C-alpha cells in the first residue's frame, strides 16, 4: 500500500518539469540524486580498480622475474624498491592492498554501489532512494575510506601487509612486520568507515525495495537485478557489522593491551603479556563476513547478467522462480559456510564436517543458476552486444571457478591445496573475474542510461575478447601451479629448487596478466571518450522491457516526468506470442512492463 501512497503523494511535487535551483556543488558533488550517486560510485570504483590492478601487475612481475631489477619498482615503490629490487615486505603489502581494494572498493562498492543506486529506483518505479540524504552520506563515507586506504600506501613503515584477511597476531604486532604499524591502523580506520558506508547504503536499498515499488510492481514482477541487489543488501546488513566487531577487537588488542586474539607470544626478544586470546576467534569473525562477502560481490553480478542475457537473447529468463529461489538459498547458505576457510585452522574437526556439508550444498543453487542461463540461450535470437558477451563470459568463468570449489569445499581435499595457488586461481575466476565481467556487462548495458550516450561496440568487442582469453590464460594454468603445492603469498619461489620448473609457467601467467591489464585501457578510453563524444543514445537502445528504459534520456530529478507509470506484467515478456504465433504487440518482440495486457493475452504465472 505504501508504494501506492508514495506514487500519489509525489506526483504533485514532481509534475511541474522544473527543478530546484541546482549549483555545480549540489548537482555533481553533494548530490542526493541516485543517478548521480551511482556515477560517483562507478568512477571512484574504477579509479580504485586501476590502482588495484596496477598493484597486481607489479607483484606478478616480481613473481615472474625474481632476479630481474626493474626501474619501475624504484620509481613506484621508492625506498621499498631500491635499485629496482622489490622489498619482500612490499610484496606482501601489494598483495594485501590489492586484495582489499579489489574485494571491497571495486567489487563491493564499485559494482553493487553503482548498480543498486542506479537501478533500484529506476527498475521498481521510484522517484529516488528512500533517503537521498543517507545515500549521499553513504557515498561520501565510501570516498573518505578510499582516500584513507590510498593514503595508507604512504605510511613510513609500509602499508598493511598481513594479507587482506589480516589474521592476527601478524596484523596486531608491529614487531612482527612493519606494515602492522601505522599502515594497519589506517587500514582498520578505512575499513571501519567503509563498513558504515556499506550499511547506510544497504539499509537504504532494502527500505527502498520494500516500500517504494510502483503500483503493480509486486515482488514477483521485480526484475532479477532487483532481487539480487535486495538480497545482497540483506546479507550485507547481516554480516558487515560482524567485521566491524572483529576490527574493533583487533584495534583494542593493538592499542589498549587487551587479549582477544593474542596469547603466549614471544617476539623480538620479549614475552608479551597477552594471555587467553585466540587467533581462531578472529578467523571465525572475519569469515562470518568474509564468506557472505563473496556473494555480496557475486550476486549483483549474477542479477545484472540475468537481466542482460534475457534482454539480448530476446527470451524470458528461464525459470524465474528457480532463479529467485536460488538467490535466496545462496544468500541463506552463504552465512553458514564460513568455516570452509578454516578446515585446518585448528578448529574442531567435527565443525569441519558440518561446514563441508553446507558448502557442498551451496553448489546446488549455483548449478541451477548456471543451467538456467544456458537454457535461456537455447533457441534464442541472441543479440551479441558487448554486455551480452561479458554476461556469457561470466557464466563461463562462474562455472570453471565454481567447479574447483567442489574440491576446496571438501575438507579432506582442502588439506593439501589450502593456501596454494589452486585457491588463488579458484577464487579469482569464480568471484574476481566473474564479478568484474558483471561490472563490465552492467557498464556497457546501462551506459546509455547513465550518460545518455552509447559506448563504442567495436572497442567493446576488442576489450571482451582480449580480457576473456587473458583471464583464462592467467588463471587456468595457475590451478596446475597450485597442484604442485606452491604456496601463495611467497615473495619468490627460488628458495625451493623443487619449484624451479614452475618458473616458465609463472612467466606465462604474468605475460597474460599484463596483456589483460592493457586491454582494460581500451575500456577506459572507450568509457571516457564515450561520455563526451559518444553517439547520443535513444530511449530504449536494447529494446528492453524494464522500467528504466521508459524514462527520458535526459536525466531529470524524480526520473519520470508526470506520473510514475504502473506495472502490468513481469519484465521478461520477450518474444511472447499469441496463439496464432504473432507477437503480442505486432512487429515488436518485447513488451514493456508498463504495457497493459493486450486483448486475449494471458499473464504468465511464472
Amino acid at each position, binding site marked *: 500500500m505504501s508504494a501506492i501512497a508514495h506514487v500519489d503523494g509525489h506526483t504533485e511535487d514532481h509534475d511541474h518539469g522544473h527543478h530546484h535551483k541546482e549549483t555545480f556543488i549540489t548537482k555533481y558533488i553533494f548530490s542526493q540524486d541516485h543517478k548521480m550517486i551511482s556515477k560517483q560510485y562507478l568512477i571512484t570504483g574504477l579509479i580504485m580498480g586501476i590502482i588495484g590492478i596496477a598493484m597486481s601487475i607489479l607483484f606478478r612481475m616480481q613473481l615472474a622475474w625474481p632476479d630481474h631489477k626493474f626501474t619501475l619498482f624504484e620509481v613506484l615503490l621508492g625506498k621499498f624498491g631500491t635499485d629496482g629490487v622489490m622489498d619482500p615486505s612490499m610484496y606482501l603489502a601489494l598483495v594485501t592492498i590489492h586484495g582489499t581494494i579489489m574485494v571491497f572498493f571495486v567489487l563491493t562498492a564499485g559494482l553493487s554501489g553503482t548498480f543498486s543506486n542506479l537501478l533500484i529506483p529506476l527498475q521498481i518505479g521510484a522517484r529516488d532512494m528512500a533517503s537521498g540524504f543517507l545515500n549521499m552520506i553513504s557515498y561520501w563515507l565510501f570516498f573518505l575510506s578510499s582516500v584513507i586506504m590510498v593514503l595508507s600506501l604512504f605510511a613510513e613503515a609500509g602499508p598493511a601487509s598481513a594479507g587482506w584477511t589480516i589474521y592476527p597476531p*601478524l596484523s596486531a604486532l608491529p614487531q612482527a612486520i612493519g606494515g602492522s604499524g601505522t599502515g594497519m591502523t589506517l587500514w582498520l580506520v578505512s575499513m571501519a568507515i567503509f563498513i558504515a558506508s556499506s550499511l547506510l547504503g544497504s539499509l537504504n536499498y532494502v527500505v527502498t525495495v520494500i516500500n517504494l515499488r510502483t503500483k503493480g510492481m509486486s515482488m514477483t514482477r521485480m526484475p532479477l537485478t532487483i532481487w539480487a541487489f535486495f538480497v545482497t543488501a540483506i546479507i550485507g546488513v547481516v554480516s558487515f557489522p560482524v567485521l566491524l566487531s572483529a576490527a574493533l577487537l583487533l584495534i583494542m588488542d593493538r592499542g589498549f593491551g587487551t587479549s582477544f586474539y593474542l596469547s603466549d607470544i614471544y617476539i623480538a626478544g620479549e614475552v608479551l603479556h597477552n594471555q587467553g586470546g585466540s587467533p581462531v576467534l578472529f578467523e571465525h569473525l572475519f569469515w562470518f563476513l568474509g564468506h557472505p562477502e563473496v556473494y555480496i560481490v557475486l550476486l549483483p553480478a549474477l542479477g545484472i547478467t540475468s537481466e542482460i542475457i534475457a534482454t539480448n537473447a530476446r527470451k524470458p529468463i528461464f525459470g524465474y522462480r528457480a532463479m529467485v529461489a536460488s538467490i535466496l538459498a545462496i544468500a541463506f547458505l552463504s552465512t553458514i559456510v564460513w568455516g570452509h576457510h578454516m578446515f585446518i585452522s585448528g578448529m574442531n574437526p567435527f565443525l569441519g564436517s558440518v561446514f563441508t556439508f553446507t558448502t557442498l550444498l551451496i553448489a546446488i543453487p549455483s548449478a541451477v543458476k548456471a543451467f*538456467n542461463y544456458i537454457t535461456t540461450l537455447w533457441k534464442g535470437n541472441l543479440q551479441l552486444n558487448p554486455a551480452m558477451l561479458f554476461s556469457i563470459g561470466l557464466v563461463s568463468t562462474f562455472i570453471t571457478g565454481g567447479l574447483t570449489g567442489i574440491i576446496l569445499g571438501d575438507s*579432506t581435499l582442502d588439506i593439501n591445496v589450502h593456501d596454494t595457488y589452486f585457491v588463488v586461481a579458484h577464487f579469482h575466476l569464480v568471484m574476481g573475474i566473474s564479478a568484474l565481467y558483471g561490472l563490465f556487462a552492467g557498464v556497457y548495458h546501462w551506459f546509455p542510461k547513465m550518460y545518455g550516450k552509447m559506448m563504442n561496440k567495436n572497442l567493446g568487442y576488442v576489450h571482451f575478447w582480449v580480457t576473456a582469453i587473458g583471464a583464462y590464460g592467467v588463471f587456468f594454468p595457475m590451478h*596446475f601451479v597450485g597442484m604442485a603445492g606452491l604456496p601463495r603469498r611467497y615473495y619468490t619461489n627460488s628458495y625451493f629448487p623443487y619449484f624451479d620448473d614452475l618458473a616458465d609457467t609463472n612467466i606465462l601467467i604474468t*605475460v597474460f596478466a599484463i596483456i589483460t591489464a592493457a586491454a582494460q585501457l581500451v575500456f577506459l578510453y572507450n568509457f571516457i571518450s564515450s561520455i563526451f563524444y559518444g553517439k547520443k543514445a535513444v530511449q530504449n537502445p536494447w529494446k528492453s522491457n524494464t522500467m528504466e528504459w521508459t524514462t527520458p534520456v535526459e536525466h531529470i530529478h524524480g526520473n519520470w516526468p508526470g506520473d510514475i507509470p504502473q506495472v502490468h506484467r513481469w519484465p521478461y515478456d520477450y518474444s511472447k506470442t499469441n496463439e496464432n504465433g504473432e507477437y503480442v504487440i505486432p512487429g515488436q518482440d518485447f513488451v514493456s512492463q508498463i504495457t497493459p495486457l493486450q486483448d486475449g493475452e494471458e499473464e504468465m504465472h511464472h
Partner: protein
Amino acid sequence: MTVFLTIVVLALIGISLWQMSKILKLSQASNADNSQVANDKDNNLQGKLMLAFVIFLYVLTIYCFAQYRSFFLPESASEHGYDYDKLMLISMVLIMFVQIITQGLLHFFAYKYRGKKGNKALFFADNDKLEFIWTIIPVIVLAGLIIYGLFTWTDIMNIDEEEGDPLIVELYAYQFDWRARYAGEDNVLGKANVRFIEGINTLGLDISDKYGKDDKITNELHLPVNRKVIFKLRSQDVLHSAYMPFFRAQMNVVPGMITEFSYTPTMTSDEMRNSEFMVEKVATINKIRREKSKKLVAAGDEALENYEFDYYLLCNKICGTSHYNMQMKIVVESEEDYSEWLKTQDTFKTQLSAQASN
C-alpha cells in the same frame, strides 16, 4: 629470456592496438549503421568467435594437462594419502566432465542461436521437469562426494594416541624457521610455554618438568617409515602453517594453542628420490638450474648447486617478511637409521648442563 618476453609483450600490445585502430577505421568507414547496437554482421562474427573461444578453452585444457602433468605431486608418501589421491581423482574427473559439457553447451548455444533479423526466439519461460532434473542430479552427486569426503576426513582427523605405538613429535614454528622436538625415551613431551624462553632454552621448555629432560630438539625432521607419527604444533609468535605436500598433510600452527596432525609415512626419502617420477622431475629441474647457472657465472655470480630431492616442510600461512623461505628438511628412513640418527642428537638435559658448564 626476460628481454625476449618483454619484447613479446610489447609486440602483442602493439598488435592489439593496431588491430583496434583498424577496427575503428572499419567501423567508421562503413557508417551505414552507427547505432552501436549489435547488427546481424556483429552477431554473426561474435557468434563464431564464441565457438572459437570454446575450442580455445578445450585446447588450453588439453595443453595444460599434457604440459603440466609433471607439476602434479607424486604418489602420496603417507598412508592416508592414497585415499586422498583417490578422492581427488574422482572429484577431478567429475568436474572436468561437467566443465567440458557445460562450457560446450554455453558457447555452442551462443554460436548456434546468434541473432539474425527476422528470427524468432522461443518463448520458453519455465519447465518444472527440467528444473527438477538439474536440481536432483547435483544433489545425488554431491551427496556421494560429501559422504566419501567425510569418511576420509574423519579417518584423517581422528588422532588416537593410544592406538598402536605412535611417535610423538612437536613442530615448533617461529619467524622464520622450524624446530622439531622429539619426546625422548618416555615418549612424552615435557611441558613448555614461551614464558620460559631464556638463553639456550629457545623453545621455552619447563625446566622443572622431568618429562622434558630427555626431549631432543633438532633442526631436521627425521621420521621412521611405516610408523604413525603424531605432530603437536606450537607457535612462538604469529600464525604459521605446517605444510607437508608429499604427505598430503597440513595444519595451522597457532600461538596460544597446540594443534595436531597425524600420518604414517610409507615411503622413505630414498624410495621417493629413486622413483621414476622423481628421477625425471629432478633431471628437468637440474637442466633448468644448469642453464641458469651459465648465465649467473657469465655475470660473475656463483653457480646454483645441483638439486637433490628431499622431502620438505614449508610454511603456508603468511607470517612476515621472510615467509617465502621458512622451510625444514624432512627425512624418512628405516627404523634403524632413524634410531641411529636420534642417538647422535643431544637431549635437552645435556644441552642445559653444557650451557651451565660454560
